[in-house]
Structure formats: structure tokens, C-alpha cells
């Protein structure tokens, strides 16, 4: 029985249980619902939960345990000479047995008979759409048959067990229904547990991020020493040579980190003044009409996908800077030679800066608005102009919040991917000319992981080392931002 059919059956049993449970409770109530502890629906839900939850648990556990058991059984039956071989060869053999087993399931009885009679297994299975890498050895066919048998038995046992558990659970729960039975409390505790499980998904995600990246990164550091990665000044990973686990390339983080920070700094150079002034104007000067129009429009900038910014940088801003610089050079020296390249730190930083304006402005806007009226009134009453009030009173009061906002924006700038992939270039160089292309950590993660992957080569695994570096940097920036905001927050009340 297939998994979906089984799930459907369990669901049907659950629904029947729900209806039967509610009915029974209604009957017990004898027309007077105050005879019951809970409303009839809760009794139904109690039966329904007992019918479905244990059955699904059995299914999950079985689907994890059975393949492992079957796998080890089949491997245990390998001939001694195969068992003496390396793990990789055994994996290969097991993969082939799996393929044969799949093919045998598709084959007609005559074809199976032909295979038993020593026919060309490879040709027959190829006709079924199951290509084999090699002509299988005889023990493999026997093992494949055994595999199929065990799979069939396992599927049958699973169906029986799941249905038994579902029906049994429903019956048990049904029998326990009584007038004073506290069905609501039981059902609610199940709901509460599921709420807790849902909220721990956040924890699982973080744990998943850290563990998955750390394990792959550690794998990488066994091939390339950590100090060569963190302090290396040359990024030249070469291509992954098939089969060779050797380290032919150089994996220096410094040029990538430098590029990331440089482009991020250029972006912040545009975003912070513009965003801050925009926030000040919105909060202190703008009338409510202007504000209600301009603020959402400015925030549209944050809603535009970054790939659109990347494309804008690639086809509009980059060529514009290039042509502009050619004109400027032409006017100055007579030689129309552009000194800004189309893909450059400036282009990427500038476009990223535009994207970050709304992050700075809306975060700072909230913080500036939160400064109490009395501080403004005091300053204005002493004869300060509005700009003096802003510069001398409001900004100092809002400073921790603004610094926090800027740090959070900086972490966005560092983790930004699509703009730099399209506009910053791929050359990992250490230089300080903003008109030349540079590359970033995120660009290299994308570069190393697109195309064919082999999870054994340092060329691929380095992406995880880069990723965990990125994760740690942004995490530190965010935690530090929160820390600053909490520590220096003015207590106005």
C-alpha cells in the first residue's frame, strides 16, 4: 500500500473516530450538555487524535528504521570478497543492486525468467528505462530479489501495523469516553505540545545552519589548513579535477573579505547620509500628507527584489558610469578613455546604497519619532532653531538607536548577493581603486556552487567555509547592534 493511500486511510479512520466520539458524548450527555465535562466536539477530537497521531508516528519511525535495516541486511549478504573491498566499492555495488531491484519490479515475468536463465540483464533493464553502469555479477541479482522481497514485506507489515494502531487507538479512546472524562484538557495539551514544537523550528533552523555549515567547513579545513584560508591573500581555487582530492588551488579569504567590506562601505557612504537626512526630514519637518505619500514610496525601494537592482546596475548604471567617465576623461585630457569600468566597486556600491536607503530611513525614523516631545519643546523654548534642536538634542538622544540601525543595515550590505553577482565582477583582487571590479564572499559562494558539484573537492566545500564566515560576521553585527541599542537606550519614562 502506498504511503499516500495509507495516510488517506488513517485520515478516514480519524474522521470516523471524531464523529463517533462526538456522537457517544452527545448520547452520554442525555440531552443536557452540562452532564459532560467538555463539549462533545472535544471527545470527538480526542478519539481523532488517538486514531491518527500514533499511527503517523509509527509510519515515520518505520520509514526511517526499515530502510536502514534492509540496507544493512543486504550488505551483510555480500560475498566475502566484496565485503573486503573499500566502502566506496560497496556503496557502488549497493547502488547497482538498488537499480536492478527497481528494474526487476518493472520487468514482466517472462523477462524475469530470462534473467534467471542467464539472459543479458543490462539490455533487458535498459529496455525498462533502468540503465546499469556495468554488467551485474550474479550475486547482485539474488541480492536485488531479496531486496525486493524485504521491501514488499516491509510495506505490508507497515500497512498492517499502521492500520492496527489507528483502529486500536481509536477504539481505546472511544471506550474511555465517560461523562466526567476531561477530554478538553487532554486535547488542549496535545495542541500546546504542537505549538511548542512549531516554535522550536526556529531553534532547529539555527542549529541546522550552524551544524551543516560547520561540518562541511571542517571537512574543508582538513584539506586546506585554516590559517591558509583565513590569512591567505590569493584567491585562485582552480577547477575541481575529477577524482583528485588534492589541493591544487589557493583559497585566501582576505581579497574576498576586502572586496565585501569595500563595496559595503561604498554602499553605506551613499545610504547613511541620504537615509538619515530623509528620516530627519520625515520625522521633523514633513507634513502628514507629504509623509504619508513619501514614506511608503521610499519603502518601495526595500520591496524591489535585489535581482532587479542587479539588472539595473548591469545594464543602466554601469554603462552610464563608464560613458560618463569617458566623457570626463575626454574633456580633461582629450583622450576618450573611460576610467570607470562597467563592473566596478562604485557601480555595485552605489546601487546597493540605493537599496539600503529605506532600511536606514525607516529604522531611524522610528527612533527619532520615539524621542519625547518634551525634549524638543525644551530646546525650542530656549530659542534654538529646529535644525539646532535636531543636531544638539534629538540626534544625541537617538544616537544609540541610529547606530544600531546602521549596523543592521551594514549586515544587510555584507550579505547582499544578487547586486554584487551582477555588478561587482568576479576577479578576486586586492586593490583600492573604486573604479575597478572587485569580488565578494557572496559572489564566490555562488560561483563555487553553481554547475556540477562534487562534495569531496575543496573547490565546493570552500563555499561552506565562506558561508559560515559570512554567518558569523552578520550574526556579530546584529548582536552588537542589539547590545548597543539595549545598553544606551535613553530611559524617557
Amino acid at each position, binding site marked *: 500500500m502506498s504511503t499516500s493511500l495509507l495516510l488517506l486511510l488513517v485520515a478516514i479512520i480519524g474522521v470516523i473516530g471524531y464523529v463517533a466520539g462526538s456522537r457517544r458524548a452527545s448520547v452520554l450527555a442525555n440531552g443536557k450538555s452540562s452532564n459532560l465535562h467538555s463539549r462533545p466536539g472535544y471527545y470527538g477530537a480526542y478519539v481523532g487524535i488517538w486514531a491518527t497521531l500514533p499511527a503517523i508516528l509509527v509510519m515515520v519511525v518505520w520509514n526511517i528504521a526499515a530502510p536502514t535495516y534492509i540496507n544493512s541486511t543486504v550488505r551483510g549478504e555480500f560475498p566475502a570478497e566484496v565485503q573486503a573491498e573499500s566502502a566506496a566499492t560497496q556503496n557502488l555495488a549497493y547502488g547497482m543492486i538498488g537499480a536492478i531491484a527497481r528494474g526487476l519490479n518493472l520487468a514482466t515475468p517472462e523477462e524475469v525468467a530470462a534473467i534467471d536463465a542467464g539472459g543479458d540483464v543490462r539490455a533487458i533493464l535498459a529496455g525498462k528505462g533502468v540503465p546499469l553502469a556495468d554488467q551485474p555479477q550474479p550475486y547482485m541479482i539474488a541480492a536485488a530479489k531479496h531486496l525486493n522481497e524485504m521491501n514488499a514485506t516491509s510495506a505490508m507489515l507497515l500497512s498492517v501495523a499502521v492500520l492496527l494502531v489507528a483502529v486500536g487507538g481509536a477504539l481505546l479512546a472511544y471506550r474511555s469516553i465517560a461523562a466526567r472524562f476531561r477530554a478538553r484538557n487532554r486535547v488542549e495539551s496535545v495542541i500546546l505540545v504542537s505549538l511548542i514544537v512549531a*516554535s*522550536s523550528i526556529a531553534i532547529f533552523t539555527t542549529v*541546522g545552519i550552524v551544524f551543516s555549515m560547520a561540518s562541511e567547513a571542517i571537512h574543508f579545513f582538513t584539506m586546506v589548513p585554516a590559517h591558509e584560508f583565513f590569512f591567505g591573500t590569493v584567491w585562485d581555487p582552480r577547477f575541481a579535477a575529477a577524482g583528485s582530492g588534492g589541493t591544487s588551488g589557493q583559497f585566501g579569504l582576505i581579497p574576498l573579505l576586502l572586496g565585501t567590506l569595500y563595496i559595503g562601505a561604498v554602499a553605506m557612504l551613499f545610504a547613511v547620509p541620504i537615509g538619515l537626512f530623509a528620516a530627519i526630514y520625515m520625522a521633523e519637518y514633513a507634513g502628514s500628507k507629504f509623509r504619508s505619500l513619501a514614506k511608503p514610496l521610499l519603502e518601495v525601494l526595500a520591496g524591489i527584489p*535585489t535581482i532587479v537592482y542587479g*539588472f539595473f546596475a548591469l545594464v543602466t548604471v554601469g554603462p552610464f558610469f563608464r560613458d560618463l567617465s569617458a566623457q570626463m576623461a575626454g574633456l580633461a585630457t582629450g583622450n576618450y578613455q573611460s576610467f570607470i569600468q562597467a563592473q566596478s566597486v562604485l557601480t555595485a556600491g552605489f546601487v546597493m546604497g540605493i537599496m539600503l536607503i529605506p532600511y536606514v530611513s525607516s529604522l531611524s525614523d522610528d527612533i527619532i519619532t520615539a524621542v519625547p516631545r518634551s525634549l524638543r519643546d525644551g530646546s525650542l523654548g530656549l530659542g534654538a532653531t*529646529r535644525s539646532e534642536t535636531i543636531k544638539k538634542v534629538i540626534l544625541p538622544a537617538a544616537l544609540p538607536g541610529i547606530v544600531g540601525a546602521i549596523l543592521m543595515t551594514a549586515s544587510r550590505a555584507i550579505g547582499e*548577493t544578487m547586486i554584487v553577482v551582477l555588478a561587482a565582477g568576479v576577479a578576486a583582487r586586492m586593490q583600492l581603486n573604486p573604479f575597478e571590479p572587485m569580488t565578494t564572499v557572496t559572489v564566490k559562494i555562488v560561483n563555487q556552487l553553481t554547475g556540477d558539484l562534487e562534495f569531496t573537492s575543496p573547490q565546493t566545500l570552500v563555499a561552506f567555509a565562506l558561508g559560515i564566515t559570512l554567518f558569523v560576521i552578520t*550574526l556579530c553585527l546584529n548582536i552588537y547592534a542589539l547590545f548597543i541599542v539595549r545598553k544606551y537606550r535613553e530611559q524617557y519614562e
Partner: protein
Amino acid sequence: MSQVISAPAATARAATPRRDIGIKRRYAAERRFRAYGLAAITFGLLFLFLLVSSVVSKGYTAFEQTMITIPVEFTESAIDKDNERATNPQKLMTANYPVVARNALAKVLGVDPNDRASMRAVGGMLSDSVRTQLRNIVVNNPSVIGTTQPVSLLAHGDIDSAYKGQIDLSVPETNRKVSDKQVGWMNQLAESGALAGHFNTGIFLNGASSRPEAAGVGVAFIGSLYMMLIVLVLSLPIGVAASIYLEEFAPKNRFTDLIEVNINNLAAVPSIVYGLLGLAVFINFAGLPRSAALVGGLVLTLMTLPTIIIATRAALKAVPPSIRAAALGLGASKMQTVFHHVLPLAMPGILTGTIIGLAHALGETAPLLLIGMVAFVADFPGSPLAPSTALPVQIYMWANEAERAFVERTSGAIIILLIFLVLMNLGAILLRRRFERRW
């Protein structure tokens, strides 16, 4: 002595009735400061305008496609010379349809079929996709063989660009992709009405193609749709459940503190890190197929969850405590209070947050690149496990193509994406306007 002292005092009173406190300078500074603020907002809005207008001006032409409508003679000799289609159906699949189309066009233009160079130029005016177009006609209805049918053929991408005026015809002929001869034919066909711009349905329906004139976002759109459904189905219930626990039930202890700090940090983790997580956990560890919409949907779900949780918690917080007190006072349990009263009242806010989170997920590209969704997918994915691609990824792939016609397609695809985002955000705003309650 007294004279010496009193003299300056008297003059001071006479010359400056008011002390100079630099009021002019200060007011000038005030005006400047104000102007900076206004300039900053103007600058931001200017760039919003530039961005949108640049994309629209480059992309609106993508919704028009140049077609050449000519009578095509499905000659038996060209398609099925030896009349073996009854015995060998493969024959109709492999026939040389481009030649059929080329001959038809040459006949209309009056080009000598023996002039090889000219014939090649004629063939170059038609898209390579005429092969599949004519093949589908013949295979669906073999009786057309031997007859002449009017067919609308796709013009080649370069002719399409030239017809739309995007190719500078003043450059020397050798430096551009369309020859003078082809331009002449193009004008001749346009005058006779055979060549004209039609509304481009292909960009909505087709899949990836190496030929810009036949490329579309239809396949990518289906991939995005699968992913959005997965994100919605998973992240809404999980996000709401998590928020309810944290907001309504969680005791203040270290564990819940940890969850809170975690969620805030997850909201700020770069999206590409989620891509690495998906690659390592879903593909490498769990063995799910690469390029599948299922994996993309799971990754985007994890990415969207913090957004939805933060929005939902804000919505739950906004429900006044008096509602809870009233429900509890009438004997409802804590769980009943939340599910019967608080949650329905918070629903508009939750849905608004969900839509905004979905809009973010729809535009996200970077994590999808890492889980192999940058595949050349020309066929519609039949299930979330089939190889598929997504709208923003399709934009990324087209942005890397060099041809002029692809710039137009890319911008067109961006316009489609932006329209979806605008619709989703408008929906969120309307929802908020319509159902938001002020307490």
C-alpha cells in the same frame, strides 16, 4: 576716567539696538539643513523613478513579437520524399522544416532559390523555432502535406529588434547582426502587411530557450507558483503556531528567551546562507532531488518564517487584553480564548504579514541558485519534485545573456515580476485598510 568708560557704552547702545546673535546665519543654516533633508528624499524617489522607468522603457517592447505571416507550402518532396510516413512516423519528426519555411519566405520575397547566400540570409530572418512550430502543425494534422497554409512564423530575434528600431542601422553593415538586404526584405514584408508586431503570448507561456524570440517565463512561473504554495502551506501554520506559543503561553524562561533571540537573528541572516543550509540538509543529507521546487519551497519557508512570526506576534499583541479577560471571565479555557477570540481578531494583521513575507520570497534569488534551480528548464514541471526554475532565477539567467533581444526579455520578465509584487502588496494594503480595527 568716567568719560573714557561711558563713551563706548553710549556708542554701543546707539549702533546696535539688538545684540548680534547671528540670527541670519542660523536661519540660513536652518534652511540649508531642511534643504538637505528634502534633497535626500528627492534623491531616493528619483532613483525609484529611474529604476522603474529604465526597466519599463527597456522592457515594454517585450510584450510585442514580430511575426511573419506567409503562405507555407508543405511540399511532399521536402517533408516526406519517399512517402513513408505511414510506416515510419519518425519521418515527420525529423523532416527538414526550416527549409520549408525558408522556401516559403523566399517565394514571397522573390529570391532565386539557387542563390545560396541570399537563401541563407532569408533563412536567417526566421526564428530557429519554426522547426518545432511547423513540425507540430504537420504531426497534429498530416493531411496538410501537399497543401499551402497561411502560417504566422516567429521572426528571428535580430529582425525583431531591428523592426522595433533597437538596432542602429547607421553602423557599417559588417558590424551589426542584420544585413542591409535583410532590412530591405523586412521593410518590403512590413509594407505588404506580412510582417507585423503581434501581442507576445509566448513570453507568458514558453519555457527557457536559447533563442530570445521563443523564450518565455511560463515554466519559471509554474516553478515559482509551486514554491509559493509550499511556503504558504508550511510557513503560515507553523509561523502562527510558534507566535501563539511565544506570545500567549510561553513562560518567561531561558528557553523562550533563546527562541526569541534566535528568531530575531534568523530574520537578519543573509538569504544565501539559507541556500547553503538547503544544499547541505535537504539535498546532501535528506537526498531530495536538485533543482526541485520542493527544496526551493522548503528553503524559502525557513527564510520567510521569521518574518511571519514577527508580524503575527505584533498582530497578537495589538489585540487588547480586555478581550482575553472577558473570554476567560466567561469560563473559556486559555486555549479557547486564543483560538476563538484572539486569533480571529489578529487574522487581518497575520495575513498582511504573510503576504508581505510571500512577496519577499517570490523575489528571492540567491538561495535558489545554490540548490540548482539555475537549470535550463524548457518543460513544465509536472510535480514539485520535477526540475524547475523560478521567475527571479529566470531573470538572472537572461541577464547573463549578451544578445540585445534578451535585455528586452529580461526587462519584460522583471515587469511581470514587479506586477505580481505590486498586486500582492496592494492586496496586503487593502486587507489592512478593510479589516484593521483600532481599539
